[in-house]
């Protein structure tokens, strides 16, 4: 059976599974009254959280970033996992005690202000949009490759599927569907990693394979560590060794902090903490979720290394004809481009970009691709300095990994199912947050309080539809790679909600004025910096203190803290009852204690 057929089979079967679970979990007419929500094991809830959490960015893009950025990419690993811990320990249990379901609702009530609520709604919508856009790009890549269409068409297909799945299907957020999605995505991620680890190092666990020595096809141990081997290959090509960081420490620190704090403020993950009845269960679920997330996050570095090694060996200095099929498949999708700068008919890899921007293929009168003398698609981009002739989109690394490693067809197909699962679960959760924020927090609570419930429902659906379309647009014209797009979302979250939530919980003197000014300053600063450095002047030398746009959220957050603190101390203290509320939330009054006398 060919890859194409298997892909349809796997993706189709996984959809049947999700829909089947959704129907099964809804359709219980034999169940007893009042058991809803109570029967979910914390481990299952942990898996569901992990599926919500691990987006297309984690699944598709992170290993790709690691493969290309090497040590520099470790910020993503540290930031995202660290942020999760912070969310579980520092924020979620307190937010829950406030009894508010959404972040804007919390901010609005805590800061007794509709302006604060509106600012928070705007932040939520903004962050979620950015995040959803990242998911769309990821979904688009998956569909493009496996349906053999252009990546832009892939995004459109992904939009339609996500919309039906999340908005009309009524099967968003169902715990067991998410559990299934987690299982599919983790299997899809781990299986090829294990295969490659065995092939390249003889170790079953990719985590230990990363630190092991290289084993050749015949099974002889070369005695050379796999990382040394990759560093050697990169050195030959004149690229910074994999294990060396190229970023200044301050930037590493800032990016990590931005990712951590941004994560902690992500609305669709916070919600999961509210769906478990007991605080204790919520904490246990968080622990499980961390284990399930770690499973993928610890595998990613190995995947990156294996993939990078294999790509260089398969591509560098080979003629176009010699290069394996995957190169041509992804070229067909538009995510690989080769420009034979030295006209030797061989593909050379090297440092830097081969040409400016993403590949721009020459097309015939009927939009058919124009082929060069070797059969490659002709690229019209302006060549850049340097020897590198190949553009390989980082987002394809994980998806192409099984093909690059020459793994069986079913592993390739499994990959597609995993990518779709990762994108769907997160996108669905985010659309839910966006539609609730727009319809309830913004329209119902601010613009038109007389809106009927029916009107609210229509507004919610329309908001989700609009969100999908806008996200789709950014998916087609991404301002960066998936993981970087997502990193912006985190940066914006870090500079807007995170300080507002944290101060709301821990500083009872924090008032309305401080919070509003803080959020506006944090968000505006971060947004402007990102837009300026990414779109207007992309020269890294202008970066303040060498902080990249991905890390600027941290600076925005610091500004937010400072401004909010200063403003709150010179303005009126919050009302007495708010101060009491803040006090009572931090005192453990919840579970068990109330039985005392």
């Amino acid at each position, binding site marked *: 059976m060919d890859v194409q057929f298997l892909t349809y089979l796997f993706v189709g079967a996984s959809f049947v599974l999700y829909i089947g679970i959704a129907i099964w*979990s*809804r*359709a*219980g*007419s034999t*169940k007893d*009254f*009042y*058991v*809803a*929500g*109570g029967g979910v094991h914390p481990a299952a809830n942990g898996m569901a959280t992990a599926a919500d959490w691990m987006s297309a960015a984690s699944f598709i893009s992170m290993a790709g970033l690691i493969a290309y950025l090497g040590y520099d990419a470790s910020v993503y690993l540290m930031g995202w996992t660290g942020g999760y811990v912070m969310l579980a320990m520092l924020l979620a249990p307190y937010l*829950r005690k406030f*009894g*508010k*379901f959404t972040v804007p*609702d919390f901010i609005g*009530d805590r800061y007794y202000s509709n302006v604060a609520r509106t600012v928070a709604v705007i932040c939520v919508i903004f962050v979620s949009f950015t995040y959803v856009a990242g998911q769309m790009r990821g979904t688009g890549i998956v569909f493009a490759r496996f349906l053999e269409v252009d990546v832009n068409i892939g995004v459109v297909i992904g939009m339609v599927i996500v919309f039906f799945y999340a908005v009309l299907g*009524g099967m*968003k*957020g*169902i*715990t067991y569907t998410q559990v299934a999605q987690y299982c599919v995505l983790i299997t899809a991620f781990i299986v090829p990693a294990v295969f490659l680890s065995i092939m390249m190092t003889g170790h079953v666990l990719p985590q230990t394979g990363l630190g092991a020595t290289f084993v050749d096809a015949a099974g002889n141990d070369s005695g050379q560590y796999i990382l040394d081997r990759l560093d050697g290959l990169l050195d030959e090509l004149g690229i910074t060794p994999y294990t060396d960081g190229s970023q200044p420490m301050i930037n590493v620190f800032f990016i990590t902090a931005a990712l951590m704090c941004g994560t902690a403020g992500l609305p669709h993950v916070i*919600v*999961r903490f*509210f*769906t478990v*009845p*007991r*605080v204790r269960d919520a904490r246990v679920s968080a622990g499980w979720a961390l284990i399930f997330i770690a499973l993928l996050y610890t595998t990613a570095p190995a995947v990156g290394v294996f993939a990078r090694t294999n790509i260089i060996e398969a591509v560098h200095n080979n003629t176009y004809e010699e290069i394996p099929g995957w190169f041509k498949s992804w070229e067909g999708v538009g995510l690989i481009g080769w420009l034979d700068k030295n006209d030797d008919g061989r593909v050379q890899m090297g440092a830097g970009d081969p040409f400016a921007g993403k590949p721009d293929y020459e097309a015939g009168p009927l939009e058919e691709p124009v082929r060069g003398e070797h059969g490659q698609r002709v690229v019209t981009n302006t060549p850049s300095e340097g020897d590198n002739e190949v553009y390989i989109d980082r987002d394809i690394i994980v998806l192409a990994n099984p093909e690059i490693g020459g793994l069986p067809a079913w592993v390739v197909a499994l990959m597609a199912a995993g990518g779709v699962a990762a994108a769907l679960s997160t996108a669905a959760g985010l659309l*839910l947050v966006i539609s*609730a924020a727009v*319809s*309830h927090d913004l329209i119902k609570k601010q613009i038109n309080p*007389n809106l*009927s*419930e*029916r009107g*609210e*429902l229509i507004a*919610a659906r329309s908001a989700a539809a609009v969100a999908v379309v806008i996200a789709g647009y950014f998916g087609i014209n991404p301002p960066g790679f998936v993981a970087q797009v997502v990193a912006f979302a985190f940066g914006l979250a870090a500079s807007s909600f995170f300080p507002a939530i944290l101060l709301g919980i821990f500083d009872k003197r924090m008032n309305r004025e401080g919070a509003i000014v803080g959020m506006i300053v944090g968000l505006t600063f971060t947004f402007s910096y990102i837009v300026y450095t990414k779109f207007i002047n992309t020269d890294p030398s202008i970066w303040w203190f060498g902080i990249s746009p991905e890390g600027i959220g941290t600076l925005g957050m610091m500004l937010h803290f400072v401004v909010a603190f200063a403003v709150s101390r010179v303005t009126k203290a919050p009302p007495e009852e708010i101060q009491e509320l803040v006090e009572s939330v931090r005192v453990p*009054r*919840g*579970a*068990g204690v*109330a*039985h005392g006398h």
Partner: protein
Amino acid sequence: MVDLDMSEPPFSLLNDSAREHLRAGLDLAYFARDTIILDAGQPGEFVFVIHKGEVAELDINEAPERSRIGHYTDGDLFGAISVLNGTSRYRFIAEQESLCYLMPGQLFLSLCDSEPAFAEYFRNRIAEKTRLMSQRRSQEDVSLADFMVARVSECQREPLVVASTTSIGEAVRILRDRQADSLLVEWQEGLVEEDSSRPGKGYGMVTRTDMLESLVLEGADPELALSAVASRDLVGVEAQQYLFEALIEMTRHKVARVVVWSGGQLVGIVELTDVLSFFSSRSYVVSLQVEQASDLDDLRAASQRVPEMLDSLMARGVRMRFAMSMLAALNGRIIHKAWGLSMAEPQRSACCLLLLGSEGRGEQVSRTDQDNALILADGCDWPNLADDATHFTNVLAELGYPHCSGHIMISNPQWVGTLTQWQKRVRSWVAEPGPDNLMQLSILMDACSVAGDLTLGDRLRDILITETRGNEVLLSHFARAVLQFSTPLTLFGSLKRPEHGIDLKKGGIFPIVHGVRSLALERGIRATSTLERLEALVIDGRVERRDADDLGEALQVFSELRWRTGGSVPDINEGGANRIVVQSLSSLERDLLREALHIVREFKGRLSHRYHLEYA
């Protein structure tokens, strides 16, 4: 050769020769899709029986979205009412290609004349349809609708017949002894009008007023025979006529009594006061008995009459919600009385007895387990509390309220406490909204104070409201149970039809009751019955009037269907009593049920959005 299935009612009610007669007169007709088979205002010439296809019944005077009032499919019959009435009120249109048997109107009417069972079948269907339709249409006409379908025979009393030779004095004595105020007088030989052919010619009537006037105003001798004072102009009705026709006769002839005939025989008499007190008479008797009870034995006797009273109310077609309020009121009075009779002062008045669950909401169609709780005043000293509480639950069990299998009774210390203790309980439930705690919160939400210091109940309600106000996380968990059971509708919106029937309680009643309870919790509404809560929510602006009406109607449809299938089955928690087999319903009932379930489905969708129930 046409072949109509004669094994189902109404055709199974015909004898063999009538069936042959019918078969010979039948025709078969084909209607293309969207053909109007019978239009509104058109004379009803045929009765139609669908062989294959689907036909919709439309009320063309209604807005398009409300116009569809009936749906008929294979084996269903329509057009009979048009034949009986002369013209059709509604439009019948083929929704699919349909093949129908046509029974000429004359043939149908002749069968009705010759076959009483057959005619009765249609009369019942018309009555049922009138009842269901009018219930569906407007709340205000309810009692009228109930009245419309009651029969004379259900309201008549035994006639007191005396000979026309009886003296006035003797008659007065009889009236006093029998607590009546009118007598029928049977004319002796020679007094009967030979020229009259009306059925009442052998009888006359005399009332208290007649005799009083003749004795006092005319100075008549008490020994005078009744024949001198009795009136000859009797107004009569048939036992099978509707009660309202009797009322019309009374109004037309300006009399307060009519006699009832059946097959030419005198069977009873209907008095105006009987008609007017038709609905409340029996409940009045029972409640009087409850109020007058001086010990538990009296109370038990009164209590035992409640189910019977309820059955008779329902059998007479009284609307479910009135029957439910009646039962709730009586239960409340009985339990109040029982509390007074079995508890001693000062404790009796220093605490407040609560009825919980469906008893608290006043939404029972039959008596169920006792669910109760007790609030003690702070500082209340009650040494034998545990024994007294157990004793009281036993008293209630004797009165016909069995012990609660879930131990939600005052014999369970968990359901007894001072206000402070209750507040702690509510707090701990709110802090950890797990299944058990949510169930307890739901039960307490429906609490209704019946005996003792009722202000304690109000204060508990205050506590419930303050402890839960604005807690969105709690609301989300609380409302989640609404989605617990799937609505028995298919993907395309038609009724599911499993062999074992669909569960009305899980599919319809529970989602409405609990959904409205969740809304009441959100808005801090104090009412406990679902309909009152809906009303309060409309006033509060939380629910649109239209939605509240729809939900109330839907609840009514479910309750009535459930009562019809389950009747007074003591334990409504047994699945069987809540199940209804769709195939056994008439097409009108199926339509009502389907619409009601659509209302539930929409309601669930709105709740799901509002309370973030998408995360299941």
